[in-house]
């Protein structure tokens, strides 16, 4: 096992299909038209010396090192910027070229410190490599003259440093920031000899607009931009390709290692989801895996008021099984259940639901997708026939109009956002439907054509109004509808959508979006050759979440925007394996592959494979489990990798339910907030410590590979297996690949998936079966999964959460780039430097009438509860709307959110809470009580 060295072809591939044949160094080579000479040479194995070129970036032609000679052409053109031509005869090396290159390198090195032996890039420096490649043996110019040596390093960023003394001003970092990331934070300041890379005007990297994606570090050919981990540890010696455990984009990384220590995470160019890009979380925020807060020994306690007692694995598992059996013996088999995690692997999730269905003997299994994308499952299943997004990420490259609804991709899904921004810079139009002015509305080289800044809670009305315009103005794609959908159902839906209450004029009054803006947006989307919809939790986390998903699907079908690249309905999944956890049968009403538990054929497949009879009745959802706990009929809960006490709404309801239970088992990396109410703590392991697969938002199944031994002794799948065996359900897996084999033989959409196939293909988008042995990038191409697309009436029914004199403002919640979900991971990294606390965004007008100044402590109160946090005055939110994040447990933002939830799925209404803001002197009583309880609940008894 060594370092994976990906070939750098110097320039990007050409998309052309026609080939051009030329001669390079006497060899004939055929490459796609538009290919650079540099790339053509590399394809035949000849590496032309280069410094400013790299295949992640557009050709630049500044370093003058890649010069070649072309017969019949004057001079020595740069091979990176010169495309191939038929019959071209190229020479990449001769005495003249060698002399020129050596002269160029001599100039570079004359202003570069000669500290190679102690340099952090020693062994991984392109400048060093090129000096060797061109045969540089002497530098005639001394350091007596003006030079750039000895300049101060910028070490402000916690993850990488900038050493201007080592900069060769190749602009790769600046171009990476612009072309790959799309932030445009970096520039070349000054000119001539004074040229230098700058992160802003008199700003260091940390204070600049840099988002720490690391693309500049990856692009740098020297030690100028270097990971601090490499500076501290040294160069890695081997690498393993694995998948990021943060958001639903599912970036592929090379975990570059020295022994069992991670030196750095480098995005993998062959990764089909990220194509070599990353964000600050995936690339840098992995230190939580070895954080001092990590608990690695099992613990138990009889009462949640007792301190924890460390025990052996054997005792912890035996105690858990005995407690669960005791509860079932006394209260019936339906008195216990479990929650799977969207952060764990498919194999682990499959195993937990198997333990519950086959071992516990009921269907009381739910997952954290309950609180994020369960409406997606409902809505897309009803209309299209399957619970998944329709496209791959590459599809955005073909979109002409992009409609973003209730999503903030630059913060929540930053790597995909970079792809989207690139397409927008190429000319695609953008419509944003969001109460906040998210970054995409206006940022460097991106501006939304329309921003529908709707009042929170009016999504269904606005999307219906868009459809009203489409139908009433004759913009519907009748050919598509007649061919692909049921015309009678369309006609019934069209009659509904044409009702006056769905007109833009009516909707304008309740949503706050001008009718003409709605009309313009509808015309833009419907008129696009390819219109693509991307949506997030701003759609689903409402009492009408499922209705909005239905309305979105209706809109896409009505305009014919389904079934080809560039279009589609694309849910941006929050966590790394939300798609997978849903696919794996984590919901209480369905088996893996979205088959209802009452489906006899499906049930018999699992009964035969598992050798036990299974229940045909739906189990309890998370909120129903908590209600049943209050009623005394649900008393045992196994929670793998989920923190419902912080992430789920109406914290007091959650805490009430957990407190009423007799055996709560938490399996996690840390003593999270839910563990404060647990009786058993089973230490889990990080994604770096186990094998398995994640499935991202584009249905792409990717390998997670173990790079170090589990700190807690076991992979999470092994812990579930131990518990299953102790409960009497025999499991004998020796490797997660065997679990995937079981998934494949019981789940038709995974029939062709195996670890072997994944290793061979890199990744697979389900469905993967005989008809699609290598997977399915775009769904519903010739027909919908359900046959004909179904238009479903999606009536707008306002939420019952109303503003009034006591609670006149609407609170909506979201996330921020540097933090992830409840922050259990990112708060334990230096990402905390960017977001040390949750802040309340409030419009200056609303702040002024309450006497609130920027940075002031305020009390945020709703009908559910109150908390305190500091205010941030901004016009990103409209008057009447306030916004906060939920990354910090001390804020307890979910004390504020209510128990209102989606009518179809019980997905909580995080996005609409009526609140009042007032000045505060300090923490609320709830916060004080909670902090005291939290400190007491985390005590561990001395041995």
């Amino acid at each position, binding site marked *: 096992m060594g370092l994976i060295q990906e070939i750098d072809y110097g320039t990007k591939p050409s998309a052309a299909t026609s080939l051009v044949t030329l001669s390079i160094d006497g060899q004939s080579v055929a490459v796609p038209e538009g290919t650079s000479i540099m790339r053509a040479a590399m394809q035949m194995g000849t590496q032309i010396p280069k410094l400013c070129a790299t295949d992640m970036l557009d050709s630049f032609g500044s370093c003058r090192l890649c010069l070649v000679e072309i017969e019949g052409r004057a001079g020595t053109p740069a091979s990176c910027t010169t495309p191939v031509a038929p019959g071209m005869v190229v020479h990449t090396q001769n005495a003249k070229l060698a002399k020129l290159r050596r002269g160029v390198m001599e100039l570079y090195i004359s202003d570069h410190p000669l500290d190679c032996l102690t340099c952090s890039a020693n062994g991984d420096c392109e400048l060093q490599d090129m000096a060797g490649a061109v045969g540089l043996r002497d530098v005639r110019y001394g350091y007596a003259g003006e030079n750039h040596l000895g300049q101060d390093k910028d070490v402000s960023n916690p993850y990488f440093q900038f050493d201007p003394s080592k900069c060769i001003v190749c602009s790769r970092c600046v171009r990476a920031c612009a072309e790959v990331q799309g932030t445009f934070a970096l520039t070349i300041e000054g000119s001539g000899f004074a040229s230098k890379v700058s992160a802003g005007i008199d700003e260091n990297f940390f204070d600049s607009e840099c988002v720490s994606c690391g693309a500049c570090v990856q692009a740098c050919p020297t030690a100028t931009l270097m990971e601090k981990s490499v500076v501290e540890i040294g160069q890695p010696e081997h690498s393993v390709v694995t998948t990021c455990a943060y958001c639903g984009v599912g970036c592929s990384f090379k975990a570059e290692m020295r022994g069992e220590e991670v030196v750095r995470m480098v995005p993998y160019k062959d990764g089909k989801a990220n194509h070599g890009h990353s964000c600050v979380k995936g690339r840098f925020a992995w230190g939580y895996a070895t954080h001092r807060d990590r608990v690695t020994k099992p613990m138990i306690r009889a009462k949640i008021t007792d301190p924890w007692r460390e025990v052996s694995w054997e005792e912890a598992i035996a105690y858990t099984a005995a407690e669960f059996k005791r509860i079932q013996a006394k209260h019936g088999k*339906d008195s216990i259940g479990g929650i799977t995690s969207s952060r764990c692997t498919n194999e682990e999730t499959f195993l937990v639901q198997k333990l519950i269905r086959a071992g516990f003997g009921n*269907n*009381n299994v739910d997952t954290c997708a309950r609180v994020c994308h369960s409406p997606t499952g409902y809505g897309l299943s009803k209309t299209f026939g399957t619970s998944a997004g329709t496209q791959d990420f590459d599809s955005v490259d073909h979109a002409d109009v992009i409609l973003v609804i209730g999503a903030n991709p630059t913060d929540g899904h930053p790597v995909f956002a970079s792809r989207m921004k690139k397409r927008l810079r190429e000319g695609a139009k953008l419509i944003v439907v969001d109460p906040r002015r998210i970054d995409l509305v206006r940022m460097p080289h991106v501006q939304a054509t329309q921003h529908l800044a709707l009042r929170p809670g009016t999504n269904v009305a606005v999307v219906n109004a868009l459809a009203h315009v489409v139908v009433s103005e004759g913009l519907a794609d009748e050919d598509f509808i007649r061919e692909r959908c049921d015309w009678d159902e369309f006609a019934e839906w069209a009659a*509904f959508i044409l009702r006056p209450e769905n007109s833009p004029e009516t909707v304008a009054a309740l949503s706050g979006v001008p009718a003409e803006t709605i009309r313009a947006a509808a015309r833009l989307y419907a008129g696009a050759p390819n219109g693509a919809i991307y949506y997030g939790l701003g759609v689903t986390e409402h*009492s009408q979440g*499922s*209705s909005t998903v239905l309305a979105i699907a209706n809109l896409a079908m009505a305009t014919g925007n389904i079934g080809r690249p560039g279009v589609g309905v694309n849910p941006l999944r929050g966590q790394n394996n939300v798609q997978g956890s849903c696919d794996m049968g984590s919901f*209480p*009403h369905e088996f893996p592959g979205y088959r*209802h538990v*009452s489906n006899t054929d499906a049930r018999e497949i699992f009964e035969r494979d598992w050798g036990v009879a299974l229940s045909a*009745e*739906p*189990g*309890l*959802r998370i*909120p*129903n489990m908590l*209600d*049943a706990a*209050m*009623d005394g*009929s649900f008393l045992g809960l196994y929670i793998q990798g989920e923190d419902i006490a912080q992430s789920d709404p109406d914290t*007091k*309801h959650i805490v*009430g339910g957990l407190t009423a239970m007799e055996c709560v088992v938490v399996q996690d990396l840390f003593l999270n907030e839910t563990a404060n109410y647990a009786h058993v703590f089973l230490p889990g392991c990080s994604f770096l410590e186990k094998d398995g697969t994640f499935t991202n938002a584009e249905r792409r199944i990717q390998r997670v590979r173990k790079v170090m031994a589990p700190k807690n002794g076991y992979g999470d799948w092994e812990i579930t297996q131990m518990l299953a065996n102790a409960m009497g359900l025999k499991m004998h897996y020796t490797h997660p690949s065997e679990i995937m084999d079981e998934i494949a033989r019981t789940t038709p959409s995974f029939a062709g998936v195996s670890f072997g196939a994944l290793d061979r293909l890199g990744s697979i988008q389900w469905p993967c079966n005989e008809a699609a042995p290598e997977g399915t990038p775009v769904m519903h191409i010739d027909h919908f999964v359900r046959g004909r697309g179904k238009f479903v*009436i999606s*009536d707008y*029914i306002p939420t019952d959460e109303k503003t009034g004199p006591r609670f006149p403002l609407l609170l909506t919640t979201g996330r921020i780039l540097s933090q992830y979900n409840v922050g259990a991971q990112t708060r334990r990294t230096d990402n905390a430097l960017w977001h040390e606390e949750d802040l309340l965004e409030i419009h200056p007008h609303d702040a002024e009438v309450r006497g609130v100044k920027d940075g002031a402590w305020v009390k945020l109160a709703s009908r559910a509860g109150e908390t305190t946090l500091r205010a941030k005055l901004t016009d990103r939110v409209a008057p009447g709307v306030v916004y906060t994040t939920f990354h910090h447990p001390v804020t307890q933002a979910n004390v504020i959110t209510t*128990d209102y939830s989606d*009518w*179809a799925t*019980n997905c909580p209404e995080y996005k609409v809470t009526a609140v009042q803001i007032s000045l505060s002197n300090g923490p609320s009583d709830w916060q004080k009580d909670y902090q005291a309880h939290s400190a007491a609940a985390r005590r561990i008894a001395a041995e």
Partner: protein
Amino acid sequence: MKTPQDRLVYMANQIGKAFAARPREEALAEIANHLKSFWEKRMFVQIYAYIDSGGAGLDELPRLSLQSLRDT
């Protein structure tokens, strides 16, 4: 704080409202199908008991759909 029973009635009414725009017979069938597909048995036991005790606050459509489920 709402009781679990309050929540159950509220959920049933929400489901009823979501289908109320459909023709009445279709709405009743869809509500029943939805409840049958997603509700756990003790939830039915509780709401049937609530109906037997008068069922105040439970809307007509979900009440009728629940009744049809109870009768089958």
